[in-house]
């Protein structure tokens, strides 16, 4: 690995780095060993504590909880993308009566903690007579409002980062404002903002875990339920481990998909994209003229 931060190590430095490396490894291994020994000594790895996870029913429940997490994630992801686009377009609108409310909407929902938002929806709204709020609705609505606002900012930044010529060219060929937005600005902006959008999707996936507090029946909720089964020795630590593996796995899969999509898109960008330098194009025109 080359880095500008340090010279390529010579023989002396190499042995010194090796020393540091061994030291660092020892420290890390020491910490890990301490944790694992603590876990073993307090009996977290005894078969009795893990037995509960061997029952097919429990496994199916965990699977169902994972599906519940994923369905909340998928619904919220789609909705917040839509809300994000609408708000971003609204904020960029030329009409004050559209852009100002959109601005305040985004600022407001970005500042309220997501958990408080979910609680307002789940515990607060029924008290003023709004009926039929299920935990699922509360989780999805909370996630949508919050992440929609965050995504709106991302989209807006993406659109504003485009060269001004794009918009002007669109206007020049006679597209309307909506046409310019839909056909020209938006596709480029969403491509440029893809990394931000993806990392926000990972945030949505992780934040579904907050649904546990408004009693939505997802992975963490089930983990707590199984973790407090006294006849299996309250396996709360094993349950947390199972949940952690599920979440980390899901997030890594999502990140992997994201990388794939990004590769695809950046590839097609090279073929048809806006970043093709101007020189070949002008040569082409001249060639056509001659």
């Amino acid at each position: 690995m080359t880095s500008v931060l340090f010279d390529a190590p010579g023989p002396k430095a190499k042995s010194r780095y090796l020393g540091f490396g061994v030291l660092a490894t020892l420290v890390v291994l020491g910490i890990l060993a301490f944790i694992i020994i603590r876990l073993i000594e307090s009996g977290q790895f005894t078969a009795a504590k893990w037995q509960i996870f061997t029952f097919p029913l429990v496994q199916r429940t965990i699977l169902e909880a994972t599906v519940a997490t994923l369905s909340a994630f998928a619904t919220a992801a789609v909705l917040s993308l839509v809300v994000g686009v609408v708000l971003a377009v609204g904020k960029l609108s030329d009409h004050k009566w559209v852009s100002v409310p959109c601005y305040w909407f985004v600022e407001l929902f970005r500042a309220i903690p997501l958990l408080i938002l979910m609680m307002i929806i789940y515990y607060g709204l029924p008290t003023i007579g709004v009926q039929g709020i299920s935990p699922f609705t509360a989780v999805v609505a909370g996630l949508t409002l919050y992440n929609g606002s965050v995504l709106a900012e991302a989209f807006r930044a993406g659109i504003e980062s485009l060269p001004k010529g794009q918009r002007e060219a669109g206007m020049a060929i006679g597209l309307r404002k909506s046409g310019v937005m839909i056909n020209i600005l938006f596709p480029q902006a969403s491509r440029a903002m893809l990394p931000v959008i993806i990392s926000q999707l990972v945030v949505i996936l992780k934040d579904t875990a907050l649904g546990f507090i408004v009693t939505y029946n997802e992975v963490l909720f089930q983990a707590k339920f199984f973790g407090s089964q006294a006849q299996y020795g309250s396996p709360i630590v094993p349950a947390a481990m199972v949940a952690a593996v599920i979440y980390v796995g899901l997030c890594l899969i999502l990140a992997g998909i994201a990388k794939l999509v990004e590769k695809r898109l950046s590839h097609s960008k090279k073929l048809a994209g806006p970043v093709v330098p101007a020189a070949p194009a002008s040569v082409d025109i001249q060639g056509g003229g001659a």
Partner: protein
Amino acid sequence: MDLFVTGFQNTLILFFISAIAALILGTVVGAMRVSPVPAARATGTLYVNIVRNTPLTLVLFFFALGYPKLGLPPIDFMTAAIIGLSLYTATYVAETLRSGINTVPLGQAEAARAIGLTFGQTLSLVVLPQAFRSVIPPLFSVLIALLKNTTVAAGFSVAEAGAIRANLSERGEPALVGLLWVALIFVILVAGLSVLQRYFENKWRVAR
């Protein structure tokens, strides 16, 4: 009203202590990830990748409910919440700083090496001070997220702002009003942080 005062006091205590701990730990981890020692790089990467892909709720879940079962010296919920929040936020600080280190022009690090500074000196005297300035906006986003994340601790019975609701509804007061007040105060706190961010941005603007 008393409830609000103690609640937000705890929110602010949680926020400040975790923020400082996360900044320190994040800087260390960020430095580890660019260091010449492969073992340190691997450790930093592993830590960041695992914790960043775990929901904060789960981290706090472990510290609040799992930790007491380990037979270690008992800690109160407040400390547990601070440890969880710091560990979680530190990964974000580390990633932000690493991207900041990348924005510092190559010549700076090269010049530092040319005058014979070691890696530690290069990083702490030349690169990091500049990196910090350029990452102030994302760093404040991380801090704002931390401020909002303190409410998650409420789910694990730290008596802070988010827990006000539970108390209010026990007294039979309308939950909605209490929650809206909590939301409003958070909006104000976040606005305060944004003002602070703008102040630091202007004060430490990188002149290039």
